[in-house]
Structure formats: structure tokens, C-alpha cells
């Protein structure tokens, strides 16, 4: 009886990695695994490069095209007209700043949280545009807003891509420690990261 209960408790973890089930390597990632401690910082660095690169690029393509960004913001028909201009003006620079901070690795955890929140806002805007039947270009990477008649809207593709970014940003928020970061260089205390090695339990 007792042994079957403990089996049941283990089963869900095994089920989470079915492709490797059965072999001795199919241990769920955790702090008890030295390999994970060796790999995680590099995964976090990769996450920083992805998020930082994407945000720098997305922001840079919009800087200098403020009129179109304003129109893209307005096309979602979410914000009142009084807010459309300030938001449209600020967004490209906000994206560049967040991207640069992620690449530099300063206050990584909290910047990653800010990135994740921004992506959630974008996803909500795209989903609501889709549900309201608007026909617009999300303006995610181009200047957007307007769409040639007959052109497809790509809402699902945009949402899937944003969901991927959200996942990467969340990973970075949970595991912000990575090499080649200002946080590391400044030896920002681990209070910033609550995941002190010893109590780093999932």
C-alpha cells in the first residue's frame, strides 16, 4: 500500500519527459543535478540573446517611423485617442531600452518580468483585435496598423510567436543568472535572484 502510494507520487514527473522515460538519464531537472547547474546559466544567456535581440530589432525598426507606430496603436481601437500618441511615441524606445538591458544583463530578473508583462499586453491586444474581427497588421516588427485589403491577418502566427517570447522571458525571470552579464560583473547579491544555490528547490 505504502509503496504504491509513493509510486503514484513519482509518476507525474516521469510522465513529463516521456521521450527519455526508462533510461537512467530521465531525472527531472532539479538542483540535485550538477549538470543542470552547469547548463542553466548558458540557457539563460541564450534566452537573453533571443529576447534582447528581438526587442532591440523590433524597437529599432519602429524608431523614426513614429507616425506609423501611432497609427498601428490606434488601429487596435483599444486606447482612447488622448493616449494613442504618447503610447505610440514611447513604445519603440521602451522596446529598445528593455532589449538593451536584457542584452547587458542588468537587473535581469526584473527586466525579464517587464518584458513578459509587455508581451502579455501585446498578446491581449492581438487576441482582442482578432475577436472583434478587426483586419489589421499587428505592427509587431514592421510599422503596421494598416493592411492591404485581401491580405491575410496572421493573428495566430503573431500570437504563437509572442507566446514563444513569453515563455523565454518567463524562463529568464525564473533563472536570471547567466554569464557575461552586468549583474554578474557587479556581483549583484543573490537577494536579487531569490534562487540561492542551497534552497534552489523547484
Amino acid at each position: 500500500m505504502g509503496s504504491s502510494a509513493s509510486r503514484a507520487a513519482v509518476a507525474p514527473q516521469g510522465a513529463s519527459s516521456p521521450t527519455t522515460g526508462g533510461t537512467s538519464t530521465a531525472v527531472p531537472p532539479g538542483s540535485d543535478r550538477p549538470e543542470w547547474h552547469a547548463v542553466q546559466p548558458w540557457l539563460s544567456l541564450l534566452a537573453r540573446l533571443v529576447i534582447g535581440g528581438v526587442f532591440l530589432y523590433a524597437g529599432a525598426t519602429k524608431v523614426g517611423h513614429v507616425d506609423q507606430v501611432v497609427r498601428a496603436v490606434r488601429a487596435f481601437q483599444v486606447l482612447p485617442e488622448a493616449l494613442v500618441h504618447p503610447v505610440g511615441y514611447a513604445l519603440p524606445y521602451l522596446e529598445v531600452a528593455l532589449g538593451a538591458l536584457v542584452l547587458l544583463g542588468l537587473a535581469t530578473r526584473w527586466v525579464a518580468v517587464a518584458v513578459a508583462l509587455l508581451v502579455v499586453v501585446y498578446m491581449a491586444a492581438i487576441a482582442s483585435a482578432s475577436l472583434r474581427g478587426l483586419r489589421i497588421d499587428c505592427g509587431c516588427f514592421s510599422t503596421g496598423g494598416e493592411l492591404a485589403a485581401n491580405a491575410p491577418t496572421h493573428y495566430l502566427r503573431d500570437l504563437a510567436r509572442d507566446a514563444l517570447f513569453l515563455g523565454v522571458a518567463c524562463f529568464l525571470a525564473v533563472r536570471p543568472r547567466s554569464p557575461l552579464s552586468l549583474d554578474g560583473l557587479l556581483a549583484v547579491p543573490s537577494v536579487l535572484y531569490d534562487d540561492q544555490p542551497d534552497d534552489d528547490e523547484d
Partner: protein
Amino acid sequence: MASKTTPKGTKTAQDRRDRLEAAQRQQAAARRKRTLVLSAAAAVVVVAAVVGIVLGVTQGSKASKGGTPTAATGPSGGIVVAGKADAPVTLDLYEDFACPVCKAFEGTAGQTIQQAIDAGTVKEVFHPLTFVSENQGSDYSARTANTFACAAQAGEPVKYINTLFTRQPAEGSASNYPPTSTVVSEVQQAGVSGPSFASCAMSAPYAGWVTRVGEEASKRGVTGTPTVFLNGQKFDIAPVVMQGGSPATLKAAIDAAAGAKK
């Protein structure tokens, strides 16, 4: 941490207090460092947003200047390209000279519109928009929108529109779009002349107006081209521009709008 008992029972109370204070000092220093780093990051984000807003407002005020062509109906209005001033139906047409669907619309519906203009039913107001080439990294749409205003000032807006859609470059990349000088010579060959047309086209005096037309269109809910309004009512262009589409619905809508006016 403090609650844990020390292995040695011989420690004095003073010893324990000292160690506690040291740990607290260390923690306070760590907290200060964290606050500093967080503040620095937050400051970068806030400064970036403020810089964006200031630059945007500056540029916005620049666009609010810029000359309006006398042919336009207002500082952010379109240009009446054809039709009697007292025609019962005003057809507002929002198009981009780089937009292939606009070319298709002109091909399918052009004759219907022209007949309604000739019959005195329709007055066509043209609003040039600029996003199609911009999305491909070219300012062709904006340049040709400005040149459209020059052609209208020279009294030949319809010839200009027809020429531009006939010679429309293929979508795809910025290098597909020709320089303004090429556009000017082709339009001149089509019969758009006037002493100042070429110099007007090259100096882009109406860039501010083009920006304002785009802004006005956005406020009106125009999110694509072509967009058609008949007496202020949005007309669904899908049946006209779809594969094998016909101008029948447009003709019916024009007649209905004209009938409602009587």
C-alpha cells in the same frame, strides 16, 4: 537563520549578537545594491520612454506645419480629382500607389466610377496613403503621394493616378521601387506637364500634408487600402477586388447613396 541553535553551547550571548549584527549589515548592504541596480534599470526604461515621447511630439509638430496643396479640401483633406462640386455622392477613395489590390480595384471599378462621374452622380476625393512600400523599407508610397499633390496642382490628378497604377512596381523589396525622377519622366510622358510639376515632385513640398492625410485616415478607421466611403459610409470592397470580382455592388451602392440624397 538566527533561530538555529549553534552546535557549541559555550558561546557567549555577546558572540551571538555580534554575528547576528554582521549578518544583518551584510544583508542591508546587499539590499542597497539591489535597490541601486533596480533603480538604474528603471531609470533607463523611464528615460527611454520620455525621450520617445519628447521626440514624437517634436516630430508631430513638424508634420502639423508643412504646406497644404490648394487643390486639397483641407489641411488633412483629400483632393477632389473628378466630378461636379454639387454631385449627390461623394466617393472618398483611400489608396496607396504601391498597393496591388488598389490597382486591381482601379481595374475592376474604374469604369463604373468614371461613368458615375460623367453622369454627374459622383465626386471622387482621393486620399493617398503611404504604408505599403514603407513595410518593405521604401519611401516610394510617400514620394508618389507627394507627387500626386503636385500633379493635382498642375491640374492632372487623374492622368497621374492612371499612370502610377499602370506602371506599378511589383511588391517584394525596396529595390523594386524606382526613384522619383523616373516616376516624373514617365508621368510627364503620359501628359502631366505644367511649368513647376517636376520641381514640385523633386522637392516634396507636401510631405506634411501627406502625413496629415494618413493621420486623418487612421482616425477615420481606415486600416487598409483601398478603402471607399460613399457619403461617409464605408463600402465593403471585398466583392469588387476578390478573384473574379465585379463592380456590381459598387454600382448598386452608388445608386442607393444617390437615391437617398434625393
